[in-house]
């Protein structure tokens, strides 16, 4: 009896390792190791043609060894902090707009008859079926100077004597595409939260004297906070690191952290500084995630 029980636990443990092992190994090799390499690289000098300078070199005039120079450089010029702050506000604006647009949609889906819900969710995720870049380039056409939208806007502005504006290559273009691309990431967690709400709670609130507005703010909204937090994290964090959308739709002044990092590796070939920027971004994201967990944590226990 004990023996077979013992065998059973051993078999169960083996199965656990066999199932959990490969993904764990995958993460270790492809996430943990590169992260460590990145941290180490940030303390090195850049190589002459990209890559890293050697740790030791025969010629004392070549750059070599370890340094804190990249970190000093990061804090020596406000421009980098400014890009971080700009990226932060872009991510915040995207998250807020996504939330405001996604909430009514998620509520609508959650309140629809069950048989229609799957179709509606499918429609929300349908844009994923086409390539990300193609969807972003589509905005180039929509916002381009010859587009119907541009002409409508400029005709309207002309009526009031204002000079024409360029929609494309502007922070506005970046924001609109950011919202467009990330909206489903807000809708889905919100929907999956709202769908689980017990409808009898709203009956109870109404029965006890709450009007429609009060029912929403006192019952539905507070109960949906966990969904709001996870949706916001799924939008905020990727937007913070996004470089493709500002690259394609932004002007020269619309550089975000993602563009800055990409530029270090591909443009100026300064790997150590690129690594430093990445580490700073990771720290910022972790800080925000920690703050969100602190804010959401004590309210999330009933979910």
């Amino acid at each position, binding site marked *: 009896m004990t023996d077979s029980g013992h065998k059973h636990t051993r078999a169960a443990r083996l199965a656990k390792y066999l199932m959990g092992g490969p993904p764990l190994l995958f993460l270790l090799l492809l996430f943990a190791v590169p992260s460590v390499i990145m941290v180490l690289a940030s303390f090195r000098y850049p190589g002459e043609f990209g890559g890293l300078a050697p740790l030791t070199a025969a010629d004392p005039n070549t750059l070599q060894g370890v340094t804190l120079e990249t970190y000093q450089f990061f804090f020596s010029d406000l421009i980098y902090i400014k890009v971080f702050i700009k990226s932060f506000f872009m991510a915040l604006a995207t998250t807020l707009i996504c939330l405001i647009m996604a909430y009514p949609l998620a509520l609508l889906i959650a309140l629809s008859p069950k048989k229609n819900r799957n179709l509606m969710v499918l429609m929300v995720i349908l844009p994923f079926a086409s390539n990300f870049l193609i969807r972003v380039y589509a905005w180039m056409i929509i916002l381009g100077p010859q587009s119907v939208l541009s002409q409508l806007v400029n005709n309207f502005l002309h009526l009031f004597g204002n000079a024409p504006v360029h929609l494309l290559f502007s922070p506005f273009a970046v924001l609109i595409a950011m919202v467009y691309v990330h909206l489903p990431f807000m809708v889905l967690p919100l929907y999956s939260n709202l769908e689980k709400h017990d409808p*009898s709670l709203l009956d109870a609130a109404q029965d*006890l*004297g709450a009007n429609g507005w009060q029912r929403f703010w006192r019952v539905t909204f507070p109960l949906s906070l966990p969904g709001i937090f996870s949706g916001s994290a799924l939008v905020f964090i990727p937007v913070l690191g996004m470089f493709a959308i500002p690259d394609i739709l932004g002007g020269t002044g619309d550089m975000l952290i993602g563009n800055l990092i990409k530029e270090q590796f591909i443009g100026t070939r300064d790997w150590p500084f690129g690594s430093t920027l990445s580490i700073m971004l990771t720290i910022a994201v972790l800080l925000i995630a920690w703050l969100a967990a602190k804010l959401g944590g004590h309210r999330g226990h009933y979910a």
Partner: protein
Amino acid sequence: MAQLEIRNVTRCFGDLIAVDNVSLNVEAGEFFTLLGPSGCGKTTLLRMIAGFDLPDSGQILLDGKDLANIPAEKRPIHTVFQSYALFPHMTVAENISFPLRMARRSKAEINKMLHVALEQVHLTDKASAYPHELSGGQNQRVALARGLVNRPLLLLLDEPLGALDAKLRQEMQIDLINLQREVGITFVFVTHAQVEALALSHRIAVMDQGKIVQVDEPAKLYSFPKTRFVADFIGHINQFEAQVVKPSHGHLCLAISGLGEIIAPPLEGVVAGDKGVFAIRPEQVRISAHSELTELKNHFSGVVHDLLYRGEVSLYKVKLANGAMNEALLPNSAPGRAELFEVGDTVNLGWRHDAGIFFHD
């Protein structure tokens, strides 16, 4: 004038008539129960009183005022839901004070009323706990306090004891009776559990297929059911196909095929030859091994077919000469009493001539 008046209310869902021309009066301060099997329309009726649903025709009046154009949130009627529907993100105190805040009462008033309500349901020490930290019985009491705290004219209770285990349910029944007496608020209680209805109510309305079948006090309902449905639904009852032999002044003489003639209580308006059903409660049937029951006008012999020992009582299912089953209930007051019958024993059954009821077809 009755506090709650339901006048000819009908509600249909497609082809189904959920509530069929129902009229009822509930007096102020009454503990009134709507009793019926599931699907009889009692919950639909309750939802219309609460304001979650509207009648297709008919009127619902509270203190003489038609509720038709008053939305649920404006009615001075609160509900205790079957699932309690407590707000999971609010503490006990926040849950209970919710209706007070919705009614825009002052802070001082809220605190005072909350305090009283917490005391009434013995939950003062749980005020800052969340519903998921409480037991089912405690959540039940929170739901009750939340329904009562703002002093509604009417409290509706939708099978509120259904989710509790048997022992706790009995305790809650007693609490509920005491609470209702204490607060003096009219209760309209919906249940399919007849034992609960009998124990709690001042009056019971039995519903079947959307119609009110009988409205009476518990003891009257149990002893003098007006229809076979009521007799069968409330408690157990033995039924025999019977035919009137002779309706005389003081009693009724009935013939039961295969058994012979019996004497039953009189019934107005029956003539010889009328067919129907004679019904008698198991506890009115006496059972004995000897022939001492011959002093009773109605007595038969039979064979014990099944025996259910229930602790406080034993239920004997006795097969009579005509093949019909008759249930008899014996209290087990004396331990190891002599007359414990076994399956297969031949026994005598009998009942008084004024026991039982004849239902005319």
